[in-house]
């Protein structure tokens, strides 16, 4: 099993995410994390997925994903081929804010991005093990809520969806 980041470029079409996830459901493969948003290219969406599968499974999955009519292209990368981050938010009671906690926040290079009367929200960006480490530290401070995003990733190998689109003829 390897960990893969899949970057899927799609048309902005209702139901596309559903069609993609069905492929995983049907094969009993878990999607560890998922993010979706518009891409750099107008009208094209980018879905980033994190999965643990064998190489053979990965090739097969990519083939099935690309078969979906509204998918433009699916690229997949091993961890060493992507630069990626995950954002984590931590809700901590205001009364827990003491010098000890502030030191931790500074050490981690995290930020307080909201301060309400009852709680503060700490933001921290990093790989999962980093955001997890901060989580463990904050738990004893009566952590109220925790939220972590899926991966936001950029691939190291060069590729261009625009070029791909330009190079393909879709008419007979």
């Amino acid at each position: 099993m390897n960990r893969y980041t899949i970057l899927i470029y799609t048309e902005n079409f209702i139901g596309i995410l559903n069609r993609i996830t069905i492929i995983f459901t049907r094969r009993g493969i878990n999607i560890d994390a998922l993010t979706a948003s518009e891409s750099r290219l107008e009208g094209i969406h980018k879905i980033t997925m994190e999965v643990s599968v064998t190489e053979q499974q990965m090739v097969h999955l990519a083939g099935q994903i690309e078969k979906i009519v509204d998918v433009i292209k699916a690229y997949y990368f091993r961890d060493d081929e992507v630069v990626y981050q995950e954002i984590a938010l931590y809700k901590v009671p205001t009364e827990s804010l003491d010098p000890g906690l502030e030191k931790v926040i500074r050490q981690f290079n995290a930020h307080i991005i909201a301060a309400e009367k009852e709680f503060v929200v700490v933001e921290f960006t990093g790989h999962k093990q980093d955001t997890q480490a901060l989580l463990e530290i904050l738990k004893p401070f009566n952590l109220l809520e925790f939220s972590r995003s899926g991966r936001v990733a950029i691939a190291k190998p060069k590729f261009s969806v625009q070029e791909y689109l330009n190079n393909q003829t879709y008419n007979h």
Partner: protein
Amino acid sequence: MIRGADIVVKSLIEEHAEFIFGYPGGAIMPVYDALYDYSDRIKHVLTRHEQGAIHAAQGYARVSGKVGVVLATSGPGATNLITGLADAQIDSTPLVCITGQVAAHLLGTDAFQETDVVGLSMPGTKWNIQVRRVEDIAPAIAKAFLIARSGRPGPVLVDITKNAQVEFGEYNYVPCLGVRSYRPYVKIDQDAVKQAAALIDSAKQPYLLFGQGVVLAHAEAELKAFLDKTGIPAACTLLGSGALSEEHPTYVGKLGMHGNYAPNLLTNQCDVLIAVGMRFDDRVTGDLKRYAKQAQVIHLELDPSEINKNVTCAVAIQGDCKDSLADLTAAVKVSSHDEWMARFRELEQQEKEAVVINDLHGTHGGLHMGEVIHLINQYKEDDAILVTDVGQHQMIAWRYFDYKQSRTQVTSGGLGTMGFALPAALGAQLHDYSKQVICVVGDGGIQMTIQELGTIMQTKAPVKVVLLNNNYLGMVRQWQQLFFDKRYSFTELENPDFIKIAEAYKIKASKVTEREDLQAAVAEMLLHDGPYFLEVVVEKEDNVFPMIATGCSVEEVRLS
């Protein structure tokens, strides 16, 4: 400005739809109302169940090579299409299904007959869409036809809300020529062709397997030209049958669980295996771990996700096999493989003695299914179309029917849908009334869609229905006999008087129980002008052999 419902019908006419198979209901009534005005330009066939409509459209699509069109209402009408969608998806049959949907403002409220048809049909369609505004109808239908018929064909569903059907909009039909994210056509990689040609030229025992891809690509002539030049033995899958005439000198038979002895056994002895438009279904390969391990595999395949999916190949040529076969034929040397071919013929003889003679020329005991097919061969026309249901009769009819032309084979291959044959035969017949359409069906399967005899009655489609009645769910009973200690758990059927049923539908019918009456009955059926229902009571506990049991290797194919 015209109504959305009129746009639906005009769009279908624009796409040269000749037939619509369907069933009305509240949410699709505006379209039905519109159809009334265009009945001189597009024919609607009212089936007796939506499943019948979609299977009929499949039968029509398979023999005509055109897109089958289906119309159904929301909710139960649409859900009745699901089996056919799944069937068409796995067998790559081009369909455009249009379903009515509740008005857009009611969506998501559990309104009367509201079902999430788009969600339900997603895994069973190549593409689907919900249309909620009148201006989106024509573009959606245009895109649907392009997607259904191009690349690897498949079923597409367009769900149209009722408000969109009754609203007025501009009509300006623009055929869809391409979709940015969809690349159905591929240029053939000439390096791959060269590599493949080199492998083929150096092979001592090359072997070619062909599937429905050849039919879908209209590559029958290219396949024949390749085989004529190379002399390579060629075997077909269930859905590939007919793509090459069985009289072709290098045709060696059929692959798979109930295919022929030699084509299965020798798969594990060839040195180069050329797979054309087939996807290495498990019914063809048996145990994959012991499938053609000695061979270098060359795969000619349009769908890239099928390449290296089940079998790893040495060379893959992605693209339409009409193109790749032509290129490959040009690149290979002329050759012949007489000794290797002789091995096939030798094993063919063994199969003949062990199985075929008894299957086709029974002398005592109950009638065999094979005898019926054997007689049909003697009286049928060369371009007769065989439509089969699912079970023992399907495998027997496939094994013994004499395929001479392409698009004469219609069956539910990938899904194995009982109830498929009767409506599919109707659809095949409607495409061309002048052709013989022979529907071979079991006593189990016919009762799943027997109501379509009503559609045959109403359309007067001259389908010849051959019911092979063994009073069992035969194929399941065979497995129970072989693998479950003859524990015939719920496979024996108490059957109705089928002849009375056929006659109630005003279809001429006869029943044969004795061997000496069979020939005359088959002849009478095939000469009869109009639909005919022939019931043949066959041996209750006959089995289909050869057989590769589940989990076994192709070389473990057994003759008894």
